[in-house]
């Protein structure tokens, strides 16, 4: 579209558009910058409402304080462990099922798809789930987080769509050579699917990294929490031992610590984000094609 659009109206539009989008960028980034500034500021400056985009009374004291809390690191490690284990299990389950669903000749395929898709629109709800997890004895264990979220139907459909798009000839040739279905999946299909696998791994990893409610609901011990629950307890003011230095009031100190904990929780995502963002976009588009 590089032709006759030299009208005055269009030029005005472009300026307005640039202003609007600049506004969008600023509004999106502002809270991050603010939180970083707060995390590096002196508590009195924060309480006085002086901290906005630049740290006032620059200090690392709050970081030191948060880092000196062993629970924080235990919870951080929990998040890491939960994310890795849950993502691994979810990948195995999702890949297997998506591969099965991608085989159009399979008898009962519609039924198998239906079972999965129906759960997108109707779910048992919080209370029956809670009773189920409790009576299975999964409370206070990693399995309360991992097992109930082992398959995301959205990810399943993205993967199924991808598998359906693979050329059938390779698999047929391998089958003629006497390779088993398992062998075909492992040695033919998966190596061809690295792009979609990376995408889905990221989808799962981010959702497990960010999840908090399952842990909040099913775990009752401090040393089992993921870092999101640690942060949740901080911002809900329900945590123990929040006082850095005797000179500050609890409220301001908590504000300080909140900011630091938030920054530390978000950093891994911010660091990885620029490199993996395009995989996410690809995944959403793959999913969108399928509807």
């Amino acid at each position: 579209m590089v032709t006759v659009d030299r009208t005055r109206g269009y030029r005005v539009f472009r300026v307005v558009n640039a202003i609007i989008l600049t506004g969008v960028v600023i509004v999106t980034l502002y809270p991050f910058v603010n939180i970083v500034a707060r995390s590096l500021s002196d508590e009195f400056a924060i309480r006085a409402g002086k901290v906005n985009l630049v740290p006032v009374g620059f200090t690392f004291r709050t970081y030191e304080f948060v880092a000196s809390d062993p629970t924080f690191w235990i919870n951080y490690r929990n998040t890491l462990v939960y994310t890795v284990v849950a993502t691994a299990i979810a990948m195995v389950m999702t890949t297997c099922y998506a591969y099965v669903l991608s085989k159009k000749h399979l008898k009962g395929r519609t039924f198998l798809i239906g079972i999965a898709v129906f759960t997108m629109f109707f779910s048992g709800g919080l209370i029956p789930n809670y009773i189920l997890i409790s009576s299975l004895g999964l409370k206070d264990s990693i399995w309360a987080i991992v097992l109930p979220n082992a398959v995301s139907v959205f990810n399943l459909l993205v993967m199924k769509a991808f598998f359906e798009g693979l050329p059938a000839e390779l698999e047929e040739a391998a089958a003629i050579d006497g390779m088993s279905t398992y062998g075909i999946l492992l040695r033919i299909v998966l190596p061809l699917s690295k792009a979609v696998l990376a995408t889905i791994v990221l989808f799962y990893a981010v959702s497990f990294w960010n999840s908090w409610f399952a842990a909040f609901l099913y775990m009752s011990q401090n040393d089992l929490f993921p870092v999101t629950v640690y942060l949740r307890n901080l911002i809900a003011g329900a945590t123990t031992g929040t006082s850095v230095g005797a000179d500050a009031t609890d409220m301001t100190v908590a504000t300080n610590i909140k900011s630091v904990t938030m920054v530390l929780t978000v950093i891994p995502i911010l660091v990885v984000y620029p490199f993996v963002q395009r995989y996410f976009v690809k995944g959403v588009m793959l999913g969108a094609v399928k509807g």
Partner: protein
Amino acid sequence: MSTTRTIDASPDTGDPRRARPDPARAKRPPRRTWRQALRRDWQLYSLAILPLLFFVIFRYLPMIGNVIAFRKFQPGGSVLGEEWVGLRYVKMFLNDPSFWQVFTNTVVIGVLTLLFCFPTPIVLALLINELRGRRIKRFVQSVSYLPHFLSMVVVAGLVMEMLSVDGPVNQLLRAAGNEPVAFLQEAGWFRTIYVSSEMWQTVGWGTIIYLAALTTIDEQLYEAARIDGASRWRQVWHVTLPGIRPTAVTLLILNIGTFMAVGFEKILLLYNPLTYPTADVISTYLYRMGIVSNSFSYAAAIGLFEAVIGLALVMSANLISRRTVGTSLW
């Protein structure tokens, strides 16, 4: 795909697609019995066992577990309740004024979210699409997707910091000579806060699908419109918008389907007893009733009601869109 299949398919039908374009004939004529299917594809079926177990245990068992909405449940007793009580719990919540309060709140927040968070990604996508430089386009997109990747806890934390008495919003108010406002303590502000933070978090990510749909619009349509003398606005109106309509309708149906489940996690993190009058929704109410106060049956009845309404909503939205614009999810 096993060996047997390739062998028994090849001799008589060669290439079925090209040989028989008639779709009715293209389907394999003799329908396989289950015994044949199992013998041929048992390896495939075996891969489905674990995922099926997952769905049965963690998705369908809880649906059955909803019978406790009609049975008296005691913690520590039978998982499926002790005795039938019929519609007692349903009647109970229908006569509960706080239920109608949270019902209204749910609908209001749901409608506001739909009104503000459904159209804004379309507008933003159109604006981003008008950007010329590839670099700058990438940058705006990357920045706007970012909030999507945050944990809800972090979003809630950011909201609290931005709106705290010493936060940026109140700094602005003070600079303008106003008294600071404790936004999160005031029921009157909750919906505004909820909807705007929702927009902050979801708008950018929502543009992806529309931007993808925009690239699929045939360039020739624009050319034809230009030859007919259509201005840029008219091109957007007559070519771009119709081009992304199927996408928009699909997303609208999905949004309507999740309408009743409005941001449970975020509300749970942001509300407090002071803001219950506007902030408390069905899901948070049943959370407090069930998990906090141990009225499992009562809460399950409310949850079932919510889920049924959600299903009804998505089905009717789907039906309406199929009848009117010809787009549907299934």
